[in-house]
Every structure is written in structure tokens, then in C-alpha cells.
């Protein structure tokens, strides 16, 4: 479905990703784990067209390299950015409607889907996004992503800064989203949780993929533990 070959990307003259190869098949949850600064977020930004890259990124046999960010969204690739980036002076419903900017037909249906997934958001329809707690904002950000009818959902550190309780909720939601037929590319620091819900995973270190395997394999691989704990 998504095929990445020899992807190089960075900011200005600063290279971050070096020769990344990665594939995602329909219906999968794929995790990319790695420490801070390894290039996880950069990978998502390259896929969603926020930054320029060299190499090949193909989506259902179409090259994404020359497309602008807003047209990539039209293809069904929706990016939920790190730090949530919700619209602070818009209400919950307005934020969600922005997520559904390109597919207004399905707006009502999607709205119900989001509220089903995160009942808490339904209670807070008219609250301003900026006044919500971090966990609620994360739900909103994911909900906003779903509003865009994604075929592939790119999630950047959804558990960042969340309490364990919220983390559980978020990972549960990701699983539900996946079972409803959405392919998920998940970028996380939370190695165990994310690999747990993933079909496959990649470990990224200083801009390179160093390990790959099924979620199970990676979870049991001592090298992963070493990479993170320096043991």
C-alpha cells in the first residue's frame, strides 16, 4: 500500500533520515520506535508532504514526491502531528469539522464515529480546544484525523505526555480504529505499548532503520531493550 525506498530527508542542510526503506500493507498497524531525535517525526512529515525529501514514496502505485501537503490528504493519508497541534480557539466540534474539511459528505457519520470512540469529546462539543487537558487534546487530535476518512493514519507520539490512564485509552482507540479497516503507521517512544498493538515494527536509530520484525519478535528482542536503556 505504502512503499518507501531510499528516503532521505532533513531540515535545511541538516539531514535527519538516511536511506529509509519501509513498507506498509493494507490493514496493518506498523510501529516505528526509536529514541528522541532518531528521525521518527521527520519520517511522518516527509510522507505527509510537510517537508521535502529525496527517494521514493509510493502510495498505491502513485508517487507522492511532487504532491503538496493538502493534496496528499486527499489521497487518504492523514497525519496526526506530534504535540497535537489542535486549533486552540476553535471548539471541539469545529476542530473535528476541520479534520473533515475534504469529505464533508461523511461529516455527520464520521462525527458519530469519533464520539463513539471518545465519548468524552461528545460531552465537550463546545469547549475551546486550547482549554482542554493534554489527554483530551490527544483524543481530539486523533478524532480530527479520523474525520478525514483516512485510509492510512499517521500517528506521531500519541502517548506523549499522557498519564497511564489516558495512554491506555489512546492505544485502545488505535486498535479500534485499525479493526474498522484503517491502516495505521504509529511513531512512538512507548516501545512496549506500541509494539504490543502492532503487526510489525521498525526500530530507528539516528536516522537509520536498525531492526525490523513483527511486534512480537521485537518485543522479545534484547537488542531493542539495549538500544533504549543502554545496557
Amino acid at each position: 500500500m505504502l512503499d518507501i525506498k531510499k528516503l532521505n530527508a532533513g531540515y535545511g542542510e541538516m539531514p535527519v533520515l538516511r536511506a529509509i526503506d519501509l513498507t506498509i500493507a493494507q490493514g496493518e498497524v506498523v510501529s516505528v520506535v526509536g529514541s528522541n531525535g532518531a528521525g521518527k517525526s521527520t519520517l511522518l512529515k516527509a510522507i505527509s508532504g510537510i517537508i521535502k525529501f529525496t527517494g521514493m514514496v509510493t502510495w498505491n502505485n502513485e508517487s507522492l514526491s511532487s504532491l503538496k501537503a493538502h493534496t496528499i490528504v486527499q489521497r487518504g493519508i492523514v497525519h496526526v502531528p506530534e504535540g497535537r497541534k489542535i486549533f486552540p480557539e476553535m471548539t471541539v466540534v469545529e476542530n473535528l469539522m476541520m479534520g473533515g474539511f475534504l469529505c464533508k459528505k461523511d461529516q455527520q457519520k464520521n462525527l458519530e464515529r469519533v464520539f463513539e470512540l471518545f465519548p468524552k469529546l461528545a460531552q465537550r462539543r463546545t469547549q475551546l480546544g486550547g482549554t482542554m487537558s493534554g489527554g483530551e487534546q490527544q483524543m481530539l487530535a486523533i478524532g480530527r484525523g479520523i474525520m478525514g476518512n483516512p485510509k492510512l493514519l499517521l500517528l506521531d507520539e500519541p502517548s506523549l505526555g499522557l498519564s497511564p490512564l489516558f495512554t491506555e485509552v489512546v492505544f485502545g482507540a488505535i486498535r479500534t480504529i485499525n479493526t474498522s479497516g484503517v491502516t495505521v503507521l504509529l511513531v512512538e517512544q512507548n516501545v512496549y505499548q506500541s509494539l504490543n498493538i502492532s503487526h510489525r515494527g521498525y526500530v530507528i536509530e539516528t536516522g537509520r532503520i536498525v531492526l525490523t520484525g513483527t511486534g512480537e519478535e521485537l518485543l522479545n528482542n534484547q537488542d531493542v531493550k539495549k538500544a533504549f536503556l543502554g545496557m
Partner: protein
Amino acid sequence: MSFLQPLISGILTGGVYALAGIGMSLVFGVMNISNFAHGDLMMLGMYLAFFAFTLLHIDPYISLVLIIPIAFLFGYMMEKVFINRVIHHPHQNQILLTVGLGLIMSNTALLAFTSDPKILTTTYSSSAFNLLGDVSVSVPLLLSFLITCLITVILYLFLSKTSTGMALRATSQNREAAQLMGINVAKMSAIAFGIGTALAATAGALIAPTYYIHPLAGHSFLLKAFTICVLGGLGSVVGAGVGGIIIGVVEAMSSTYLSSDWKDVIVFVIFLAVLLFRPQGLFGKKGGQ
């Protein structure tokens, strides 16, 4: 003399200031650009109203239905051709570009329409009625105030209810996230500039029947529009609306109780005080520091 007189004429005049300020604030919020050609865009509206009145015999307030789309297109094109090229440049270059564009507009107008001021005299240009005995209320000013209110409400509804309007707000709140929603932010910039221009031109047209029309007539409103924007919080539409009325009232009050020649100084001092003590403006949320 009644305290109400300066209050009421200040509020009514402030309405027109508000419209100029809202346009500028919108452009600022979405594009992060200080538009020094804003006064010249007001001038454009004045001439449009004047020619609609003298050539087509359309009442200046009614001619808004023509002026708004024309000005919108003008602003939209201006953004596409010039402004978007400097959207990532340093502020000072953006400012000088808009200064240059303003010079081109005002001097083209000078060539085309000469420097003779044009006076647009409608049947109601100098009519007024009395309120509460001795408070005189100017009819054209009241009309333009009401139209300002109407336009502000329409703009508010546009920004909060329509998808384009919401996309504009989204772009101004977080440009990158807006892109991720599939919003074409480059187009939003052009639309924002188009609306900003339309609002400036509307302000110009509204003031035309009680003011005079001259190629440089917009300049006296430029710094005022900036003051209003900062007062209300750069980027805040509601803030700019209230800011405009505050400036109108402050001007009228200081003319009445202090002196006419110091009123501009008082406005600038308030401006600086707001910058110092509340840089996000009276209503804004973005920090200035």
C-alpha cells in the same frame, strides 16, 4: 456640553475605523504580514464608491455589493502576484514591499484621477437628527455604523459557520496543522488578503459620503488601523472591532476634554502602553514577546 455627544460620535466614527482594523487584523492573523498598503486599499474603495455614484448613479452604500467583490478579486490577485512571494521573507522586506505597492497604487490614482479631491455628496451627507434633546447623530455615520455592524456579523458568521471561513481560522491558528487537514494554505492566504482588501475598500466606501476622496486619503487611516489591530490583539477580528470603537471614543473624548491637536498623541501613547503592558492586545491570546 453633554458627555454623550463625543461618546456617540466617537462610537460611530470608531465603527469605520473598526472595519479598517478588522481587515488588517485578518491579513495579519492568516499571513503574519503587516500590510502598509492597507490605507491605499481604502482609497481604492473610496474611488470605486465615487465612480459608482457619479457614473452609475448608485448610492455609495448600495454600491458595496459591487465594491466588495471587485476589491476581493483585486486583493486576491495582489496576493498571488506579489505578496505570497515574500511570505517567508523577513518582516521588514514584507513591510517595504507593501509600502512600494502602496506608492504604486496611490500614484497611479494620482495620474488617473488627478490630485483634486472629489466630494461625494449624497442627499443625506450632512443630515443629522437629535437624540435626547441635544445629542446630534449624523445620519450617514449612523448608516455606515449599521452597515459595519452588519458586515462584521456576516464576517463573523462566515468565519464560524462556513468551511472556508473555518479553514481561514484554522490556518491562522496553526498553519502546519491546517495543511494536514487538507487545507490549501496558499489559497487561504490569498483569500485572507482578498477579504482584507474587501474590508478596507468597504471602510473606504462607507466613509466616502462624509469624507473626501483623494489619492492619498487612505494614509491617515493606516497608522490608525495598526493601532486598532495591536489594541485588539494582532489577528483577532473581534478585538479589532472593539479596538476601532475604543480609538474612535478616545479621539472624540480627548478632543472634547483635552485638546484637538493632542488627540493623536494620546492614541499613540495608549498604543505604546498596550504594547508594553499587554502586548497580546486587549483581546488577543498570542503573546507579543
